[in-house]
């Protein structure tokens, strides 16, 4: 059975207050950390092999070690703009155990010599923001925040910043622009935020779950934490299972657990005994997998090897009762709406993908459009400042690749409905050669 590190009795009444959190051993990791030299704290995090839980899976210890040494103002930004469709794990942490996140932030700031930290929470999370605000006030009262924390001479200001509804602000540089009071447009990288980020200062950006794991790592020691999970994906992970399952919700699993166990044993599988048609292993941005991939262990490297990604750990299950075309249109519409418009491949690519998918629905498409759509996706990937465009291109590309027969049948059925005429050989094969 998995040891629960983050979700251990998280439903305990009043855990959001400092009194209950401390009774449960809260802030003991902070006391332990301030007894160590700052470099040793970062070393523990590096030893743990903790990989970022927000989507990219970058090692937190390594990221922290990129921060330049010296006296310049440095910042920590906690990314709580959880807006990847399907993801809702950070919400549960912030609502039920906000002090765990705050403790993680204080330890990380102590280790990296940071004196100003921000939590960028999405504006829609009103309740969670209120919980955090209350918890931050309590932490100031207890002397965990502010001047001279626990007699170490380290000082830290923690500010809660509420966003206003934009998916792109979950992208790290978009988030920084938004935090500086601008439109949330992503920036060109490099320079990476660790070198030049918020207010041009070195900035460490981490996801809520990553930072909330830090107290557990300090408590049990980095090397012991690395024993959990697989060699390259250490520790436990919160997975948000949603869609066509009987018990949707957040589950804490050890990385490397078979995907079938998560979807069927924990979340109950699709209702009515239906078969799974496709599933997104890491939020709606990840390339889709099918029921043949259910036995893969759920960790960063296996998912990457299977052509997808673990992303934010959000599993969306779609069963056989749904049309793959509807899923694709929803996806593409979302990214077209949320594209900030800065880079042409993403702004135009997302919009044209929506139009091409709608053409299938209205009976104006031919199978040639599927090739065109696939080629648009390959032109988006890697050609923009941030990965929002890729986030649409990867799943749409994989849907076109894996469900081509179904989409072709949709095209034919829609042409019949709309009276645009049956597909002749010429239309079906198209004039592909002369166009490309």
């Amino acid at each position, binding site marked *: 059975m*998995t040891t*629960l590190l983050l*979700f251990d*009795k998280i*439903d*305990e*009444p*009043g855990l959001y207050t400092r009194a209950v959190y401390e009774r449960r051993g809260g802030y003991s990791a902070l006391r332990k950390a301030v007894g160590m030299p700052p470099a040793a704290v970062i070393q523990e995090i590096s030893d743990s092999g903790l990989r970022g839980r927000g989507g990219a899976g970058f090692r937190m210890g390594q990221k922290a070690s990129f921060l330049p040494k010296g006296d310049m103002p440095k910042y920590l930004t906690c990314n709580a703009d*959880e*807006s990847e*469709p*399907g*993801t809702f794990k*950070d919400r549960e942490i912030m609502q039920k155990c906000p002090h765990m996140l705050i403790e993680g932030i204080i330890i990380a700031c102590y280790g990296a010599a940071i004196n*100003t930290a921000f939590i960028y929470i999405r*504006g*829609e999370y009103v*309740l969670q923001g209120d919980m955090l605000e209350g918890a931050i006030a309590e932490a100031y009262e207890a002397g965990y925040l502010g001047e001279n924390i626990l007699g170490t001479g380290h000082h830290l200001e923690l*500010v809660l*910043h*509420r966003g*206003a*509804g*934009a*998916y792109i602000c979950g992208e790290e540089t978009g988030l920084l622009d938004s935090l*500086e*009071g*601008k*439109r*949330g447009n992503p920036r060109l990288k490099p320079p990476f935020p660790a070198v030049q980020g918020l*207010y041009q200062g070195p900035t460490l950006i981490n996801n809520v779950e990553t930072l909330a794991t830090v107290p557990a790592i300090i408590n049990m020691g980095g090397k012991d934490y690395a024993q959990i999970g697989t060699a390259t994906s250490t520790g436990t992970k919160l997975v*948000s299972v*949603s*869609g*066509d399952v009987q*018990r*949707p*919700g*957040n*589950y804490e699993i050890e990385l490397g657990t078979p995907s079938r166990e998560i979807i069927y044993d924990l979340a109950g599988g699709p209702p009515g005994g239906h078969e799974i048609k496709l599933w997104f292993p890491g939020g*709606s941005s990840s390339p889709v997998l099918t029921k043949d991939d259910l036995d893969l262990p759920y960790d960063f490297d296996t998912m990457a090897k299977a052509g997808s990604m673990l992303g934010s750990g*959000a599993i969306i299950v779609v069963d056989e009762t*749904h049309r793959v075309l*509807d*899923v694709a249109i929803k996806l593409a519409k*979302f990214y*077209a*709406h949320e594209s900030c*418009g800065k880079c042409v491949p993403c*702004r135009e690519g997302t919009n044209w993908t929506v139009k091409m998918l709608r053409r299938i629905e*209205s009976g104006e498409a031919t199978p040639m459009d599927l090739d065109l759509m696939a080629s648009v996706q390959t032109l988006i990937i890697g050609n923009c400042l941030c990965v929002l465009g890729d986030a649409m291109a990867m799943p749409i590309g994989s849907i076109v690749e894996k469900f081509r027969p179904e989409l072709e049948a949709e095209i034919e059925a829609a042409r019949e409905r*709309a*009276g*645009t*005429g*049956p597909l*002749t*050989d*010429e*239309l079906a094969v198209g004039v592909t050669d002369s166009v490309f």
Partner: protein
Amino acid sequence: MSATRPPRQPQQTLGAERPTTFAGVAIFADGIKPTPVPRYQHGSRVPGWDDAVDLTKPPATIPDPATTPVPESLRTAIEAAMAKYPDRRSAAIPALHLAQQHHGWCSPEAIVQVACVMRLTPAYLTSVASFYDMFSLRPKPPHDVYVCTNITCSLLGGDEIHERMVELVHDHPDLNVCSFECLGACDIGPMASVDGEYVGPLNLEDCEQIAADLEAGRPVLEHKQLRFRRCADPRSHGDEGQL
């Protein structure tokens, strides 16, 4: 094209009567009507893109505090927000939230007041406000019902909930129903955020309840609120009671 291609049927995308268009405006036989097909849902032609601009006026500068009355409570709140950040400009979003709460929407008056306190131009703040979904640059009813119609919720019927909700509150002066992108509560899908309170899983009957609760000023759908929901993972339950 060879002769094997079947004759193309007229498409029915524009309704029975097909208008001629001039400069993007559809002209029907009986006059000018808005194009019935939702076009340009995104990009430069979102509503308001063609709002008249008076080019004879000089561009608006930072408003003069002496001639711009700002409600005292709003001024204090914005100043407190600015004091939290190393750079006052960072408070743009919190300040716009405050102004929207005060005025009901980000009206030109609200924008000018924020600009006056923050020492920024109204144009800058308008550019920020127009970027984010939660700011409204048009008058809007006071109560917001955001119905999630993103992927998980729509698999579970979120679109029908949205349609029903729109039908129910049709032209209601106090309720602002809109479809919203993923609100981060797929476990209670299909769900909605009613004035910031997450409720779900919803069925079609709940829509009436939401409207009734809002009218009566009661807490909305209390038994379905996210704040009282326990974690799905039974292993993580505390030993006693509800949160």
